[in-house]
């Protein structure tokens, strides 16, 4: 409990900032939907007429006349990118920051086994992601009520669940990397999140690159697929969960045998 509380306190400012930013952008995005809906024909046409650009963002398969379609693309991008960056940042810095700010020497000379330190840090990262998502979902529900939309629960829930798993995957992969580095690694973390995002854009562009969807968690958060199939694409999801498990295993293994700088 001591360590978990400490970690949560250390990450509190970042959590509040990111949650507020994502929730605010999401709320604004939802609140302008009624305005956009009235011009839906032009917008839908415009968005789906941008050729491969539309394809990259999955906008060719979406009906913007439906709130859920709009939500999946616009809000999905905000929560997807924002959440991915937040998850990458907290995952990559979790273990590495102790060595970067030279507090590892302090922390690890207390009678606490290293695997417990790793477990509590991982738990803190996951808990913070959960809090961010709960807050974002609450704001989303509130905003949809304000504009009087009543979207179907199941696809909405699946989209949120997919993004939650995406954040957990990115955080876990970065957490694994965090155990290998002894500096900040913020660039690595944000780079990984951005790379995952771009991989999915490329996968959307051409059939030949479709396999890239297996590599990136954005492959299973594509709202068009989730809305159409009524489920999170299981083939991409499975690979994603394996990535997450690999990251976590690597962290426990590496941190247990690491020379602390």
């Amino acid at each position, binding site marked *: 409990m001591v360590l978990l509380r400490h970690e949560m306190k250390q990450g509190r400012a970042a959590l509040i900032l990111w949650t507020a930013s994502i929730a605010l952008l999401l709320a604004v995005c939802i609140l302008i939907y009624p305005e956009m809906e009235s011009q839906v024909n032009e917008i839908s046409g415009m968005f789906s007429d941008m050729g491969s650009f539309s394809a990259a963002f999955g906008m060719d398969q979406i009906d913007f006349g439906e709130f859920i379609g709009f939500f999946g693309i616009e809000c999905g991008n905000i929560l997807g990118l924002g959440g991915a960056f937040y998850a990458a940042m907290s995952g990559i810095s979790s273990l590495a920051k102790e060595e970067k700010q030279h507090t590892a*020497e302090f922390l690890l000379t207390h*009678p606490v*086994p290293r695997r417990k330190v790793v477990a509590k840090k991982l738990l803190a990262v996951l808990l913070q992601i959960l809090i961010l998502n709960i807050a974002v979902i609450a704001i989303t529900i509130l905003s949809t009520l304000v504009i009087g939309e009543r979207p179907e629960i199941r696809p909405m829930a699946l989209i949120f669940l997919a993004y939650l798993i995406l954040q957990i995957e990115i955080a876990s992969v970065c957490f694994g990397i965090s155990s290998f580095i002894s500096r900040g690694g913020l660039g690595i973390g944000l780079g990984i999140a951005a790379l995952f995002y771009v991989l999915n854009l490329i996968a959307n562009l051409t059939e030949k690159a479709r396999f890239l969807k297996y590599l990136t968690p954005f492959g299973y958060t594509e709202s068009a697929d989730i809305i159409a199939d009524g489920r999170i694409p299981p083939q991409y999801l499975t690979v994603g969960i394996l990535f997450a498990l690999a990251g976590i295993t690597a962290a426990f293994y590496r941190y247990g045998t690491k*020379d602390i700088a």
Partner: protein
Amino acid sequence: MPKAIEISSLTKYYGKARGIVDLNLTVDEGDFFGFIGPNGAGKSTTIRALLGLIFPTSGSTAIFGKPVSRNRSDILDAVGYMPSEAFFYPTMRVRDVIRFSADLRGKDCREEARSLCDRLELDTAKKISELSLGNRKKVSIVCALQHRPKLCILDEPTSGLDPLMQREFYIILKERNAQGATIFLSSHVLSEIQRYCKHAAVIREGRLLVCDSTRNLGHTGAKRVTVSGIASPPSLENMRDVKITENTVSFLYGGDIRRLLGILASLPLTDIKIDEPDLEEIFLHDYGKEDA
């Protein structure tokens, strides 16, 4: 006698860079032990291996008879450690860091912490980021001592502390030692080792040079001879480290005392002083010259 620290054939390489080579060292329970060496000699590497922060390339370390590799948490429960560089979470307040350290140990140390903070004149309301090096060192001292450890491992503890605080710090350590705690501290300041430690080991370039009581280390048979009234050194063999200032000559003499007195008696001296050399002089002479 039970051993507080046992280091056997400890070797640590960082890739190809040397840390320490085949180091053997034991420290008895209740000892006040000094670990001396120039910067980069391997003092911190040895200490970090003792605490399980780094893993030896070969050899082993044990504390109170338990191998560090298998009983890290058990051992750390009985150890208080003060790192050479005192870094803490910058956004935390002093009292929160001290409390966090006690909580991690699952102990209530509030009373002892308060007493230590008072003696060291540490303001616990300040944020870590506002502290000077000296004050961060004090936080480090409190965290290392508040749980009354059986073994204190202190890496360059006095650097950054002002002389009054250094004195208070050593008074606290002597009290703890008198109450049965084993003290193991590293330093490159020989005078403080000589003043406070019962035993000391000298390490250089990763290897142990000598380990003995501080009295024996200082007692090499040589004398520091200072004479006034002559401008050039007397013609004596076994003279080292000769210093000449105006009409005073000072040198270390390691030969026959009667011969020294015979030669000095024939000189027009106005003053004479014959002293034990301090550890610093011996250290510099025996181990420092190779650097030059």
